[in-house]
């Protein structure tokens, strides 16, 4: 898997190490930060070991093991957050975030608008597929939450961003849903600043410049888009790659600026394309870039099926570098 090199530092660690580092550093910095979730207590350190070592270091007081009760413990975190703490909730898999739905989209999301109660929690949700994990361990459910006022939704695609954005999420005074790509956990390494590292929420990043078209993406698809762009470069097609990083709020300025410059847009995400976040991006472009567009706005996303388990089916389900390159060629030739 290709690596990322947008941070200025030479130390290269994995996506998972980067996020564990952010958790550790924020817990060290602020005694109000705590983690809670299933199987994160004791020596175990959680299903993906993202919280490994925190219990030994910070105690059971700040590393709270929970029963399988996502709705209840997310609501509990809301109460802690209203009282000024900064809980970081680990969903064991992003797929189980639907179990906590009311606590997120109804209670936590609306509280500040209605009665000015700030809810500074972060939900870490290991999302994403491509790993033969089947329909209930492969979901990318960001669109549900991006539709909800009051939430922020982050989908980092590099080790540096996972650290910088998780740090920002923990410090943010609003409920933040942080979708990690577990596909990248151990497969992607990149440079990550060892010390305090903050990436602003809501800012996209141009991951690659290019004049011929703009590929707009986020999460694990960033790596596929970069691979596709590399391939296209060999064919004299210069594709800009814009990594949204945050899907709510959207960085409309950068999206529009890039598409106005290239005149062509290809939007890519691993989540179901139908009614996915890419639709909002396409609609935004269709509305704001009408006079700049030289081709239809194209989208690639998951099929409108559950994420299938078997490799040939999942490959058919999920966009990849090859399909991105094909769609880009098509746009370029328009």
């Amino acid at each position, binding site marked *: 898997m290709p690596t990322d090199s947008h941070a200025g530092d030479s130390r290269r660690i994995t996506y998972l190490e980067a996020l564990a580092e952010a958790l550790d550093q924020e817990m060290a910095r602020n005694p109000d930060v705590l983690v809670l979730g299933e199987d994160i207590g004791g020596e175990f350190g959680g299903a993906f070991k993202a919280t490994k070592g925190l219990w030994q270091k910070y105690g059971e007081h700040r590393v709270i093991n929970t029963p399988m009760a996502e709705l209840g413990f997310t609501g509990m975190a809301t109460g802690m957050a209203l009282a000024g*703490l900064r809980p970081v909730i680990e969903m064991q898999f992003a797929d189980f975030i639907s179990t906590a739905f009311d606590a997120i989209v109804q209670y936590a999301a609306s509280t500040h608008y209605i*009665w000015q109660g700030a809810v500074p929690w972060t939900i870490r949700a290991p999302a994403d597929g491509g790993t033969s994990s089947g329909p209930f361990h492969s979901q990318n459910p960001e669109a549900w939450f991006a539709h909800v006022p009051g939430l922020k939704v982050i989908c980092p695609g590099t080790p540096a961003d996972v650290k910088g954005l998780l740090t920002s999420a923990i410090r943010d005074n609003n409920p933040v849903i942080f979708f990690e790509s577990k596909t990248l956990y151990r497969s992607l390494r990149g440079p990550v600043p060892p010390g305090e590292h903050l990436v602003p929420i809501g800012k996209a990043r141009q991951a690659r410049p290019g004049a011929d078209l703009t590929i707009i993406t986020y999460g694990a698809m960033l790596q596929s888009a970069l691979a596709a762009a590399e391939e296209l470069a060999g064919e004299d097609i210069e594709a800009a790659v814009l990594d949204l990083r945050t899907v709510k709020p959207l960085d409309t300025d950068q999206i529009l600026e890039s598409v106005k410059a290239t005149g062509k847009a290809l939007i890519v995400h691993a989540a179901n394309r139908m009614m996915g976040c890419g639709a909002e991006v396409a609609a935004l472009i269709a509305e704001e870039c009408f006079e700049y567009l030289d081709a239809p706005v194209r989208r690639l996303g998951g099929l409108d099926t559950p994420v299938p388990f078997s490799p040939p089916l999942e490959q058919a389900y999920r966009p990849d570098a090859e399909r991105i390159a094909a769609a880009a060629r098509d746009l370029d030739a328009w």
Partner: protein
Amino acid sequence: MTSLSAVERLDIYRWMYRTRRFDEVMVSMFKQGRGLGTCFSARGHEAVSIGAGWGLQPEDFAAPMHRNVGMFMLRGLPPDQLYSNYLGRANGTTRGRDANLHGNGDLSRNLIGFISHIPQSLPVALGAAMSFRYRRQPQAALTVCGDGGSTAGVFHETLNMAVLYKAPLVVVLENNQYAYSTPVAEHTAVSELHLKARAYDMPSQVVDGNNVLEVFKAVSAALAQARAGEGPSLVEARTMRMLGHAIHDGAEYVPDELLAHWEARDPVVRFQRWLQNNDGVRPDELQELERAESELIDQAFAAAEASPFPDPDTVKAGVYAD
């Protein structure tokens, strides 16, 4: 903490009466078409709201629900701002953003807002309790849950976690016999609601929810235990919803005899009599108190009705905290 002076008892009565008057004026105004949206009458729930609320300290957290206007007022929300909320005015407790008692949170008063999705305040109150445990502060959180609310799954999740974590939480199970049109026996399988706590080895007890002193005694003791680190408990307060579920509901499904039974145990009337019989409070004292409270409530409603609506340009403000 759990004993009361005669002065305090009279003050408790003042709050109960205020709660009653607030409700009466609200109901009559909505019936006249001067309300907005809907409202939920608290008639019959005065002893639960005030008796339970009286045990709270300012530093404790409270998470009342849609019939606990007494507890909201006791916690410091002014009646005029509450009425303004019912009327969608800019100076309402939610600045026109939510209706009736929904959304009446106020962190400066350690008050947790209520949302429709019942009983979502239960785990939130648990979290508030957990914040005390986290910071090793000797305070407690109190939440109210209806009989109907206790059939929702999150009730089970919350009680289980509260006991596991020995959280300083007190759950007041306000059993007012109905969840909307559905009587307790048709929504709950167990013979006595407080027994639900036994599934979590959580101490529980039943009190007469129309006897304010009994409610106070049980809840303040439960709060004291919670503050002392002895863990959570549940108090089932048996009472009756004397009017319909919401203003439009005539509650034809409630048998007359049931209402008559509870009418004879009206918590406000009963405590008034008790004060006369036991504390020697004189009828004229009571009359003066009631007159003053009625006036306060009438003025609060008038003030609310005279308050302006919010400016539509503010509609987007406050979705996010800075």
